[in-house]
């Protein structure tokens, strides 16, 4: 048997399992919201743009759908993380703070560095999706460092 249930859980273990189930539900809600948003954006896009490929200005959506997706994105990128912040304990909150700090510092540094490199003819001009990607990658990298090194 892969998983064996413990018959006599102490009050602490039962509470820990409840916390783990809540955390999995949190991840599932985030995944479902992200999946719905990504699917609708890709399936109902009337233009040739892509949110991640750099030509996002060619993206064209129905106004109502755009408002719905904007609301979904606000929930996914703002409300759910803030809610999660209140749900986790102090260790995970510390890891998250390290991740958000790494992300913020990366963006603060990335734009001027990118602009200067562009001025020197090395790279194309800075663009929003690229800076968003820098923030996202830095957040994940910072979280992993905090998770395994701190």
């Amino acid at each position: 048997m892969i998983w064996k249930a413990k018959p006599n859980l102490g009050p602490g273990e039962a509470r820990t399992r409840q916390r783990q189930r809540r955390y999995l539900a949190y991840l599932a809600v985030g995944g479902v919201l992200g999946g719905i948003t990504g699917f609708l954006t890709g399936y109902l896009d009337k233009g040739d743009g892509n949110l991640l490929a750099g030509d996002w200005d060619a993206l064209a959506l129905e106004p109502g759908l755009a408002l719905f997706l904007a609301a979904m994105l606000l929930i996914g990128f703002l409300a759910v993380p803030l809610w999660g912040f209140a749900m986790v304990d102090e260790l995970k909150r510390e890891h998250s703070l390290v991740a958000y700090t790494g992300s913020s510092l990366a963006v603060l540094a990335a734009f001027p560095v990118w602009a200067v490199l562009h001025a020197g003819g090395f790279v194309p001009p800075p663009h929003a999706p690229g800076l968003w990607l820098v923030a996202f990658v830095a957040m994940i990298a910072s979280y992993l460092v905090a998770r395994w090194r701190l």
Partner: protein
Amino acid sequence: MKNRLKVLRAERDWSQAELAGRLDVSRQAVNAIETGKHDPSLPLAFRIARLFDMRIEDIFDDGELP
């Protein structure tokens, strides 16, 4: 910061998950405290002390006391 959490837990035959649930933190937090990777906040340190019916300084040692 050194601490006696692992010993105190073992004396009561509690798993990390059991202690985590009683303190309302994650099992990872208990593990991080036991291994010295995370210093608990003052409120959590008080909860730990109350759970074991001890003083904070009897559980945690910052190496400053003679």
